């Protein structure tokens, strides 16, 4: 369906949402005044029930979030100490991969390549999957509360990923942000948003399809560029009179863009326009307009990628770094535990360290976190993380599939001058796009899916 253009919520929408609020209010015993003020309801009953997970009487590690980080922490823990009771809590029913999703977006990869079963992962790696959403953590009593009941832990790993921060795009109002998110979803969190974006493309008739590149260490630096290439290729292939307008806040992208720029020049001159140095300062959803430092910019359809922040659960349970806009986890950057609590760890894109927010980084780091935990159980110390150089690929042409490559290493190194650890990341770019790299791009993902869900290697 094409987006409804230029209208605010209809009268019927308002009635429907008022009705929903009334139902909710009644169920929770809260009172909702017309206009929205809600007094706090009592806590839901789920809090007082124990979650139905097998108890093994062994040390239990609970992992919150079954994304690229959490899945790998769970797998590695069982590899290192098969006797551990490992419980992975994930609220989604099915895994959906962000990596490789840009190829699926334009119909060049079947959905079954991206979606995988948490049941498979748990059964092949011998841990428990609890299909639930974590709502709170009592760190004093070592209890995790979920909508399926509570459970205790000996160690806790939080890998909940990111949330969007629309306030930094000049949309501080929660209702307006929610509307923006449903009308022009970023599709940088796995699942439904991606499906919506695909439907938007399939229904796109003509005009400007807008993408944004946010400031800060956003999730997957080259992904907005990869997506621009894929969408432009789709427009070209289907003879759509349109173009991708990519608004990048940076004057130079925060990664080595040569191979991607070259592809854009060679392949998509007529279908991609990049404007750099664009700061988004406000968004008028109804008018499909961005207010920016370069004036107002209108679009026909869009996937608006705002700055990212640590997943909200971190803030809710009081372990977010509230003095920084990213609200990422407040952890020791070398030992990975929450400051002041050596039983709670945070990994993946929720970490505060400025590593690339990428699946391969989360995956490699997960092995390190698992080792920190098992070492701690064995009374052993663990050195800082230093990743080897690893390849990652960025698709620039969908048909024939061609990608460019990067090799990245990251970690914390000891700094003699300060006597502390400093962050270090190196990246090299392989700029020549090729079919061979396209194949490697697919295998990069497939082999990691195999590890996370199936292989006992």
């Amino acid at each position: 369906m094409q987006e409804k253009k230029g209208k605010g919520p209809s009268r019927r929408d308002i009635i429907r949402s008022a009705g929903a609020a009334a139902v909710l209010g009644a169920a929770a015993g809260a009172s909702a005044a017309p206009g929205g003020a809600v007094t706090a309801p009592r806590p839901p009953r789920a809090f007082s029930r124990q979650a139905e997970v097998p108890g093994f009487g062994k040390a239990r590690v609970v992992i919150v979030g079954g994304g690229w980080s959490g899945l790998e922490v769970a797998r590695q823990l069982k590899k290192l100490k098969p006797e551990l009771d490992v419980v992975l809590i994930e609220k989604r029913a099915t895994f959906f991969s962000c990596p490789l999703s840009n190829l699926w977006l334009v119909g060049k990869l079947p959905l079954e390549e991206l979606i995988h079963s948490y049941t498979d992962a748990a059964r092949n790696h011998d841990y428990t999957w609890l299909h639930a959403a974590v709502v709170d953590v009592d760190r004093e009593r070592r209890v995790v509360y979920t909508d399926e009941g509570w459970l205790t832990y000996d160690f806790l790993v939080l890998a909940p990923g990111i949330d969007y921060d629309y306030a930094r795009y000049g949309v501080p109002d929660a209702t307006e942000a929610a509307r923006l998110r449903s009308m022009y979803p970023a599709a940088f969190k796995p699942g439904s948003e991606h499906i919506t974006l695909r439907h938007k493309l399939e229904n796109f008739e003509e005009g400007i399809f807008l993408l944004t590149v946010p400031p800060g260490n956003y999730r997957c630096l080259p992904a907005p560029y990869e997506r621009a290439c894929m969408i432009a290729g789709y427009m070209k292939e289907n003879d759509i009179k349109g173009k991708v307008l990519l608004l990048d806040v940076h004057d130079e992208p925060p990664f080595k863009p040569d191979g991607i720029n070259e592809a854009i020049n060679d392949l998509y001159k007529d279908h991609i326009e990049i404007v750099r140095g664009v700061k988004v300062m406000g968004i008028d959803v109804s008018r499909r307009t961005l207010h920016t430092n370069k004036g107002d910019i209108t679009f026909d359809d869009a996937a608006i990628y705002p700055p990212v922040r640590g997943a909200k659960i971190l803030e809710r349970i009081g372990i977010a770094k509230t003095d920084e806009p990213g609200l990422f986890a407040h952890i020791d950057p070398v030992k990975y535990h929450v400051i002041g609590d050596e039983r709670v760890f945070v990994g993946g894109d929720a970490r505060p360290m400025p590593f690339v927010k990428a699946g391969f980084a989360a995956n490699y780091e997960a092995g390190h976190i698992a080792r920190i935990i098992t070492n701690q159980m064995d009374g052993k110390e663990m050195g800082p993380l230093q990743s080897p150089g690893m390849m990652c690929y960025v698709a620039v042409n969908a048909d024939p599939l061609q990608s460019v490559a990067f090799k990245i290493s990251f970690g914390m190194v000891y700094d003699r001058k300060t006597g502390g650890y400093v962050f270090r990341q190196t990246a090299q770019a392989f700029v020549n796009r090729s079919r061979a790299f396209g194949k490697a791009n697919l295998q990069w993902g497939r082999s990691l899916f195999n590890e996370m869900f199936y292989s006992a290697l």
Partner: protein
Amino acid sequence: MTEKTDRRQFIRLCGRTAAAMAVARAAGHRVIAPAFALENPPRVRLVKADGSPLKAKDLPLHANWIFHYPYHSSPALLIKLDDPAPPTEVEDKDGKAYTWPGGVGPDKNIVAYAAICAHALSYDSKETAFLNYRRERNQMTGHGRVITCCAHASVYDPAAGAKVLAGPAKFPLAAVLLEHRAETDELFAVGLIGSELYGEFFKAYRKELRKAFGRSRYKKMVEGDVVAMPVKEYSEDAIKC
């Protein structure tokens, strides 16, 4: 490890594997038997695409060749290095040491390894060879004369039992044991040691292996003569990274 337990373990290895390892022992190296060696490995002769025997002297220096061993579907790289490769001690996936018995041939420089990555099982197929040996230093890894897997950039040293030099892999590629018959200059693949990955390999790629090598044939062991050829002739894309 004492000489005594060493010998006992050694005898437990099947005849062919033990014989191939004994070469290293005869050369005066301390030999640690691997925890894993393929049981009843086939003994196959390597031949060229035209069916004639592949002689050690026919294999070009810095060859990046492929053959299938021990199963019809499991690829292995055949490499001729420029220097003799002496036996080397390496560690398997459980951290257990074993001796890789070194290169074979008149110059002790011909080696073979499973072309199945010890990181996440990427392998060399007709469509794509992810693992390749290259002589030249590559700009990404900075290493020359190494086997690189381009799925995530694991780098292995073929002159040292495929020890990991860089990248996310944690243990060496499995080693194919070779035998060189001096009288005829022929090469034979006779065993496989190191880390067992074939169970996981079949599990991961069953569908495509069946399609490429036959419904049941894919997991049958090779026998008789096995064709070896340059990777760039076998695979559509030999990836360089």
